[in-house]
């Protein structure tokens, strides 16, 4: 069965379908990461986007069990690759990429010249597009909509580090759980990748996740678990604002929550969308990149140093005005865009890249430690 990718400029590209047989529309983006398609596809930040993978040979290691994914299912609206491999070979593979896509009802097509598509987007900027398989559909601009409700849980969850099993077969020296016992972090879930939670849990941190629109400081819903004590004090020591899809301006509720936290001088770490939201809450500004950063090889220079980190990124919006009292923490070595901000002395900081990796290099995982080590001593959150 054939499908067609139609771009908003009218161009179209035909290819064999290897996913679900239905049409899908969204914003067309490309990622240059060479490994980790299961992690990418389940990354909630891809919500509403049709993903082109520039690495041409995809499907090689099939799809592993759910527990290795970054959310409970595929979030991208569609997938375009050059050469789909239907004969995976890997000990963790549970099913082929094609079977998975079909099960998750996500269309995918093989378009030979993904390089041409990439160059087109590079030249003209991100475009709207649609995969048409059975019957045409309208274009759809995910940035005009608030996508967060579509990707995050609407419940509060409490996760204890003791119950945590680290599944990913990573290097064994990545864990040092003793360090941050007794700390509770409130994770504002705007479509959080699971590895943010794993990265916290494996450091011994207790994690409470709240939906993007939930105000943890009003705690009006009586249902357990609560984010405030009886006395109205927060039950957490710090806040992590997660990654997520779309335009940061849409997440006004999260921005409000962050503003409240700032007033209370609660330590905050923002990641990706969280970085943009923190910036906006602080009065800084954001804009849209021509074609975004989606790759596993983005070099970020630590400000005022010659130190540079290779990072994983997946974002279309970026911070273009650093708020007062903050300074640039990281800067992209390729295009000079901001990659992180940090308060002059308070433990309030954020990064545009993904310190939790998955997919991608794990070189910036230390950001979690850096943040946790800077929390006020002794740790609060006595009410555990």
């Amino acid at each position, binding site marked *: 069965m054939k499908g067609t990718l139609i771009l908003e400029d009218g161009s179209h590209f035909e290819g064999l379908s290897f996913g679900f047989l239905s049409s899908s529309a969204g914003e067309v983006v490309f990622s240059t990461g060479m490994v980790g398609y*299961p992690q990418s596809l389940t990354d909630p930040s891809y919500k509403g986007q049709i993903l082109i993978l520039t690495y041409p040979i995809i499907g090689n290691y099939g799809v592993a069990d759910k527990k290795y994914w970054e959310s409970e299912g595929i979030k991208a609206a569609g997938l375009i690759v050059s050469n789909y491999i239907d004969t995976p070979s890997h000990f963790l593979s549970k099913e082929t990429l094609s079977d998975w896509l079909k099960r998750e009802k996500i269309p995918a097509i093989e378009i030979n010249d993904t390089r041409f598509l990439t160059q087109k987007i590079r030249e003209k900027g991100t475009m709207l597009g649609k995969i048409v398989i059975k019957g045409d559909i309208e274009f759809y601009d995910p940035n005009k909509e608030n996508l967060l409700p579509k990707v995050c849980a609407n419940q509060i969850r409490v996760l204890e580090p003791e119950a945590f099993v680290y599944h990913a077969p990573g290097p064994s020296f990545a864990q040092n759980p003793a360090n941050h016992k007794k700390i509770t972090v409130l994770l504002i879930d705007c479509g959080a990748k699971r590895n943010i939670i794993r990265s916290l849990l494996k450091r011994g941190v207790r994690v409470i996740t709240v939906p993007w629109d939930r105000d943890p400081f009003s705690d009006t819903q009586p249902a357990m678990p609560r984010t405030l004590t009886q006395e109205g004090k927060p039950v957490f020591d710090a806040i992590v604002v997660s990654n997520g899809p779309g335009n940061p301006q849409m997440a006004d509720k999260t921005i409000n929550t962050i503003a409240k936290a700032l007033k209370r001088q609660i330590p905050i770490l923002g990641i990706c969308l969280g970085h943009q939201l923190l910036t906006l809450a602080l009065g800084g500004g954001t804009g849209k990149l021509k074609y975004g950063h989606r790759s596993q*090889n983005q070099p970020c220079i630590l400000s005022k140093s010659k*130190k*540079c980190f290779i990072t994983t990124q997946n974002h279309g919006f970026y911070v273009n005005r650093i708020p007062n009292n903050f300074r640039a923490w990281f800067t992209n070595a*390729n295009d000079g865009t901001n990659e992180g901000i940090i308060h002059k002395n308070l433990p309030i900081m954020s990064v545009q890249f993904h310190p939790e*990796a998955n997919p991608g290099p794990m070189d910036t995982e230390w950001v979690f430690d850096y943040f946790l080590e800077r929390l006020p001593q002794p740790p609060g959150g006595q009410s555990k």
Partner: protein
Amino acid sequence: MIIFWKDYRSRREGKVNSMSKIKKVLILGSGALKIGEAGEFDYSGSQAIKALKEEKIKTILVNPNIATVQTSKNLADEVYFLPVNDYFVEKIIEKEKPDSILLSFGGQTALNCGIALNKRSILKKHNVKILGTPIKAIILTEDRKKFADHLRKLKIPTPESRSAKNINEALKIARQIGFPVMVRSGYALGGQGSGVASNIDELKEIAARAFAFAPQILVEQYLHHFKEIEYEIVRDRYDNCIAVCNMENMDPLGIHTGESIVVAPSQTLNNFEYHGLRSIAVKIVRSLGIIGECNVQFALNPNPRKNLLDYYVIEVNARLSRSSALASKATGYPLAWVAAKLAIGKGLTEIKNKVTLKTSACFEPSLDYIVVKIPRWDIEKFRGADERIGSSMKSVGEVMGIGRKFEEAYQKAIRMLDLDFEGATSDTLLDNGKTITELLKTPTPKRMFAVAAAMKSNITASEIYRLTGIDPWFLYRIKNIADAEKNIPPKLSKITKQNLLELKKLGFSDKRIGTLVNSTGLSVRKLRKKYNIIPYVMNIDTMAGEFPAKTNYLYLTYNANHNDITPLGNKGVMVLGSGPYRIGSSVEFDWTSVNTAINLKKYNKESIIINCNPETVSTDYDVSKRLYFEELTFERLADIYDFENPFGVIVSVGGQTPNNRAKALKAYGAEILGTDPKNIDRAEERSKFSKLLDNLNINQPAWNKFTNIKSALSFCERTGYPVLLRPSYVLSGTLMRICHNRNELTHFLQDKTKFSKDYPITVSKFIEEAKELEFDAVSQNGKIITGAICEHIENAGVHSGDASIVFPSQKTSRRIQKIIEETGEKLAGALAITGPFNIQFLVKENTIQVIEINLRSSRTFPFISKITGVNFSELATDAFFNQAKEQLIHTKTGFAAVKIAQFSFARLTGADPIVHVEMSSTGEVACFGKDTKEAFLKGEIAVGGKIPQKGIFVSLGGERNKILFLPSVKKLAALGIPIFATKNTSIFLDKNGIRAKHLYKIHEKKSPNILEFFQKAKIDLAINITDEKFKKDIDDDFAIRRSATDHNIPLFTKMEKAGIFADAVTDKALDNLEIKSWSEYIK
């Protein structure tokens, strides 16, 4: 990761010598090309020199390999054509007083030299700083045991292994670990001396061999069918670390990475494995304090228990390596250039990406294609050599195919080998009586073809996996190729556009498709163009399209629908490179290709290089205007020609492969610059050339071509023996050989595989005891522009690639030289030569005969260019544009230069290390001196020769050899060290007043035995000269030669070479040898 963060803080203010103090840097090269250490170090050294020059740092290069690009005029400030060892390098340091030295750009040779210099405190004494990775780290990584201990402290596993100092210890350890075990030796390259032992006897044998090269060996747990994965890591002084490339070996662990088919990036690793191993590699590199480049090799369990990352570190190379050259070409990231910048103190963020010229060099390339590297072996060229491949290297070169499907890149790479394999399904090697299962089970160069054959005979992927350890992922891709062949309609007219397009996307050649549909490649090409199925030109941009590339590093693919570039048209000139290095064609042709590309600028032309060998400088994209990393097949060249529509094509600077394409390209309508392909054909086609010689009254050895025994025999009776046989069927390893009498000849001709109606044989009169001379020249429109005559030290009968060659000629009279020049002029005129050419002559008692002519640049081109100071390659380019000015023929210099071949017999187990008419050397060096003896001695040391200090073994077959060589033995005796000899030789020597101890032959198994003295290292020079007319029942001479080689004892098998060596070691003392730079010889 916590560790990283802490590391980062503590190392943040890394103290490094400030760059401004570096003014003059000594760079060590790797010497002659040998198995395990080949052209990749020409690439890395050249990039290092360029990187330093850009910083206005003076560079002094030590490298006796005269055929390299790095020893060219426009690169290093000073070049020393001297051996890369601590003795000579100290002398050079004393003279040049460099402030720093680079050790990591010249392979294991340079590294070992650096370690020796350090051990003897020479660097400290002369205040020379080691740039880049600290020597402590180098020493640590070279000592396998210490390194394993180091990793244990980091909680990083290595295979269980213990070191042994003798065979008994080794046996004990093996019993503890359990068989099979792997034996390895430290401080060696390309797995020399290593092997897998599955029982006690095998272990004894392998260990004995290993101890010949190293004092200590490791006995190690053998990891059966693990994956072998490599990472190329770069680190700067600010502790920035990047993984430039990861690579996956298609062959499992146990096959050396240099012997494996390798893909980049890895294909079967998921995110956790890819980035998990990457993090570990980075951690190791940080722990060592590497500054520059480093290679980390992993073993990865494909089926781990508990779903954990089950891996071991195999080794770390703290220097540029073969893999890093491959990684460089695979990604477009100039590893060596960057490593040099980091060595002088730059940070990664201070360097720009050389491809985009905009983004940072501190990043990890993203590929939107796959590369497949395949080694090129020439094992069948070595009589007796064991064809099995394993943990030690035997291949002599490699190629790299680029595509957007594995199938495409793989089939391209197979064709790039230039062995007439049309693709993955080629079966030319399989017709040898072995079953498919046998071929799968025992790794040999044939195995890759056995896989496709097995697929065709419906053996399952899982069975093939069990036999080979090749991951099913790769097997399915090959199955895809095999299946596609099955489904082709058997007639060209039945092929649809869709059929054809699919086949081309899978990398099938027109020719292969032609064969499958009972047609020809050209007809398929015609149909293909009618259907408008053409390959597209893609740019390698390091960032998968995210940023535009400013350079033109290109490949062609059918898996795309647009071109990244537009044609150069009339401004472009295609320069065909050499293809893979192999016996008989190597770095010398890269030198000419690079020079030609550079010289084209003079004529306002833009060079378009086509080559497929990742070990070369010509495939650095800053050498040419456009680089097509592509096949040198007619099909591909025609595709590029169609696209670029260039001014012309140069076929005469890349060796025989491009030369072979001349005819077809011309017939296709391509404009060939230089000699008309019609005339190339007249020179190459034996009978045409013979007629030409007759017409011009030029002598040649009598010869003829035969298809039946009778006429061959009667020819030989007429001309007399010995005769030289050239079979026309060479794939089976049937080589040129000399027959000394009727018996030998009939015996040979009775073998149907070597001689039949379909495989005629060429028989020439073999001229005994003739001198061999080479005439290299450049001609323009049939008029010689300039030329030079070189003389072989060995008599004819030693292939010109193996012979020691001296310039200026020492024993050739002016009269003979004149005749040679005149003959050259006649031939140049008759063939209307424009461009480079080479003629080989035999001279005996004033008669001069021509053996052959090559209408292309020859192996000796860089040699004569560098010793005369006249760039013959540049003149050749001038000639292509009709602008060359005539010069004198070069006959004189104020010094002597000798080119000496490098042999790699030690690696080719079982091969007879004797030199003969068939070439067997893998590389060469050339040194200068006051006279031939001095130049020879330096050269001999540079290829691993030693001045004997313990004992000399002599075995002279036949009366004549004994008498002729007696004066040389007398000289050697004057060295005052014991002389040992076989029975008859010792009697003869005793009679002539030389005391020689008799040693029993190896097969006699009596003491004192040759083997025993070899083993105990009581002999450090072996001379074995046989009487070839006399065939013995037991080839005891072979046993002597082989065992000398296996014990790392320098060996001479030809009288003339042994003689000049005897002269040289007795007349010259090491400290009298001149330490002069190239520019002191050639102003």
